[in-house]
């Protein structure tokens, strides 16, 4: 019942807890130092990404953080090179469709497994869970062979199909639907809603925070997915952003400054997703702990 409130409250306490000022003791100083170093460690890659995107090619292999002759030329090049927009659009389409598909199907399956009693329910659940243990790397070859047989190589569908539903999402949603009291569902049943309506109008609004977390996971996962899109695509116009960016440069040399420029631009959507859903992301990170 209070799922939404509870999660909001907990994320707010995590986000905005205002420390009351007390004189620092040694323990605190050590803790802050560690956190500070950790923070630097986290920021460094981003700093280098932005720094590199502002450098000329000859300076790329210098580790200085401040470019000697900063330039926006890389941005001009990437944005004027038509391919970037294609890749960006491809990634956006694929990540969006996959996210919607996951939010819909994972929660539908999770709900069914959670709230309906039918023979084999437990086996189905275990079967779904067990797929969590198989790493993507192992699945890539069967996927490829399958795509080849079906003629899905180098198509949107080919890039998307393995991720349209995920075992993790199903598991996550099933666990969350456990928090929806059966009385709610039965009350709606008595009020004359059919099972699909009950799921959509009663159960789904009650697990909104979980849906938001799932959406973030899936969107980010697909936005940054590399191996499978790299394998399944051939033509540049079907590349996703990470695949496209890695193709900058030629055999002899990797154009790091262009890759970093593209990467810098491509973090924008993730930044937006984060800003919109940040109150849920903390909960999401907590839940990622479930996956291990």
């Amino acid at each position, binding site marked *: *019942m209070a799922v939404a*409130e509870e999660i909001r409250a907990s994320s707010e306490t995590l986000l905005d807890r205002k420390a009351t000022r007390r004189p620092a003791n040694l323990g605190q100083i050590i803790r802050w130092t560690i956190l500070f170093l950790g923070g630097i460690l986290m920021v460094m890659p981003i700093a280098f990404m932005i720094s590199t995107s502002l450098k000329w090619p000859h300076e790329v292999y210098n580790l200085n953080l401040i470019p000697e002759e900063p330039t926006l030329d890389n941005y001009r090049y990437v944005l004027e090179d038509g391919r970037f927009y294609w890749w960006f659009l491809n990634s956006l389409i694929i990540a969006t469709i996959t996210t919607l598909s996951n939010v819909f199907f994972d929660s539908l399956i999770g709900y069914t497994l959670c709230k309906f009693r039918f023979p084999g329910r437990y086996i189905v659940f275990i079967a779904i869970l067990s797929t969590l243990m198989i790493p993507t790397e192992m699945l890539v070859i069967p996927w490829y062979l399958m795509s080849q047989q079906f003629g899905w190589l180098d198509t949107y569908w080919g890039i998307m199909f393995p991720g349209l539903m995920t075992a993790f999402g199903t598991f996550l949603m099933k666990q969350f639907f456990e928090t929806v009291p059966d009385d709610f569902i*039965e009350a*709606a*049943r008595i009020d004359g809603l059919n099972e699909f309506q009950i799921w959509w109008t009663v159960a789904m609004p*009650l697990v909104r925070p979980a849906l938001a977390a799932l959406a973030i996971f899936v969107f980010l996962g697909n936005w940054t997915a590399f191996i499978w899109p790299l394998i399944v695509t051939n033509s540049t116009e079907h590349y996703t952003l990470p695949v496209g960016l890695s193709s900058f440069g030629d055999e002899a040399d990797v154009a790091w400054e262009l890759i970093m420029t593209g990467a810098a631009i491509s973090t924008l959507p993730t930044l937006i997703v984060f800003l919109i859903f940040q109150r849920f992301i903390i909960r999401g990170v907590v839940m990622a702990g479930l996956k291990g």
Partner: protein
Amino acid sequence: MADVSLMKLVKAYDRTEVLHGIDLNIEDGEFVVFVGPSGCGKSTTLRLIAGLEEVTSGEIRIGGRVVNNLEPKERDIAMVFQNYAIYPHMSVRKNIGFGLRTAKMPKSDKDKRIEEVAEILDMSALLDRKPSQLSGGQRQRVAIGRAMVRDPAVFLFDEPLSNLDAQLRTQMRLEIKKLHQRVGNTIIFVTHDQVEAMTMADRIVIMKDGYIQQVGTPAEVYHKPANTFVAQFIGAPSMNMLPGAVNGGSVRLDTGAEVALGHRLESGRRVVLGVRPEDLAPDIDGAALVEGQVMVREPLGHETLIYVGAGDAEIIAKADGRLPPELGETVSLTADPANIHVFDAASGEALT
């Protein structure tokens, strides 16, 4: 509005039978309360009537129509749940109106109906609040409103008051009873609280282990309990049970006391005599039913409960509130033979 009848109703989960053939007729407009200890099958019976569970065998009729194979929404019933089941993401208005979602009537009629119900429940001012802004009692009223809005033939309540504090429970008890007098629909109300049952019901159905023990008005189940279970379940504190054997026209209790019987039973038969605490009075003519020391006193103001040790047994009696016997004092108590219930010791059935 409609009558409800259950015929040889059996429910089994897998192979465990939890209801063993329930027969019951509920009249149109009646307020019937199912009462019994937890796990006795009250909720299961209610859920079978609602159509939330499938009947294993037997028949359910609502308004003369067999409903065994009808969906809940086709049965013309509404149900109020223990934890209210009102939706936190919807306003009070939406929650109450939820029951009308699938009804085919113009929106203006629906709105009017919601206002009417809110008026009856005294909630008009709260229609645009969210459930989180309501107190427990108000939430329960929203849940009742949602059931009322469809004007069902039968209302089903499953322990709707057990989440409320004692004071609010008493108040809601009264409100539901008034509501029944006002709208007149058939009500089936489930509770484990015999006080709720006694105060609200036209008729009480007492259940135990999936069997009906007795059906009757509050007065009937109180004054003429069908067996020792009903006798001890109804009334607080519980009826005292004194084992003994028939000896001619009287019963010789195991404590040695001799009690005259109103009617004849064959000599030597083992029986249990039941006496309510409120029927025990100080003995003045030397024919004590129980004699013993006061072990514990529980003052309640208008009366004092005294626990009297009589042999191995402990007898509860109600004594005067102002001048109760002292602790340790030996008291002898007796009861009007008309108020002594006789049960068969083996079966527990009342012998009259």
